[in-house]
């Protein structure tokens, strides 16, 4: 494993509080994930890739922005691995960098309609920007 990947791996494990080694690769998280077909890397793959230190592809993946934070994978994992927390940690690793926001204030007007609740905006900003 490259040194930079090792450092990232440790950082992601630290801020997520997840121990990917607990995973037994049963795939239940992916089977229950409402976003699995939108995610190029499925939740069980996130866990395996973080465990292997294969972080670079995850950093670039749109999968980070498709997770709905629905916590289905958290509740239904038989080993209590909590994959959503890893997805969150990888996403934060990206958006905490300078100029790396996935959503920018200028993008907002085009997304609005009359009925969209404030909750959608604040949630999207919390997930996609720093």
């Amino acid at each position: 494993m490259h040194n930079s990947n090792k450092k990232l791996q440790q950082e992601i494990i630290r801020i997520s509080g997840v121990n990917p080694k607990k995973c037994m690769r049963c795939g239940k998280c992916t089977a229950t994930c409402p976003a699995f077909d939108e995610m190029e890397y499925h939740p069980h793959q996130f866990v395996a890739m973080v465990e292997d230190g294969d972080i670079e592809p995850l950093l670039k993946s749109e999968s980070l922005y498709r997770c709905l934070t629905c916590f289905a994978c958290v509740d239904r994992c038989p080993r209590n691995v909590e994959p959503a927390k890893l997805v969150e940690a990888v996403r934060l690793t990206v958006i905490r960098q300078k100029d790396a926001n996935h959503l920018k204030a200028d993008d907002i007007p085009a997304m609005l309609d009359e009925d969209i609740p404030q909750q959608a905006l604040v949630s999207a900003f919390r997930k996609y920007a720093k």
Partner: protein
Amino acid sequence: MKVSYFPGCTLKNKAKQLDVYARRCAEVLGITLEEIEAWQCCGGVFTTANDEVATKLSSVRALQAAQEKDQALVTVCSACHNVIKQTNHAMQTNASFADKVNRYNDTPYDGSTAVYHYLEMLRDLVGVDKIKEKVVNPLKGEKIAAYYGCLLLRPNSVMRMDDPENPSIMEDIIRAIGGTPVIYPYRNECCGGYVVMESPEFAKKKSNAVTESAASFGASRMVTACPLCKYNLEKNAPAVPVVYFTELLAEALGVKEDANA
């Protein structure tokens, strides 16, 4: 009885009905919702990373405001409830997180405020039987599909509202006000949430699965406690009308007038 009340950003704007009916119904049932002064937005979603501190301070301030009055904290929006309850849990169980938070505080907060969703308030502080007594316009058996989505129930280790795979809290209330609850498989699946902002097609797929499921089991209306769920279901999958559960309750308790009046 008085409780501290955290309405949240959307209840002051697009989801006024959720707020106004919640207050009116609570009064009928003997509870006054005292709005927390100068509350701040919860941020909509809980950030699970344990080094995220600043994003959780608004929730801690609300929890502390309730503690100062020695009151329980009640929220009616599913998202606010999820964020505040998860933050409170982190204050109770994660000492290093609590320590960082408390460096922003004059008096330390220990996570001891009791946090209730409005539905839990109805079940645990009011009681389903009392609701039944107060009904003046029973629903005459109308088939109502309760939609839980994600935020009310999960993560269950923290939320502890109900059985996360087979909840009954809304169904029990629907029964108490004279409706017939519809049990359908998608009631605790996600509507697409905030991803609607960048992928409306994705939200449409998710929402369609939910409303079609409710319709196929004969629902004539759906109820939710979440403004974003309501938006997604109405916008992307208008198979069945969706109302806030507080509106349905207000109908039954005879206090439904124009929420904007």
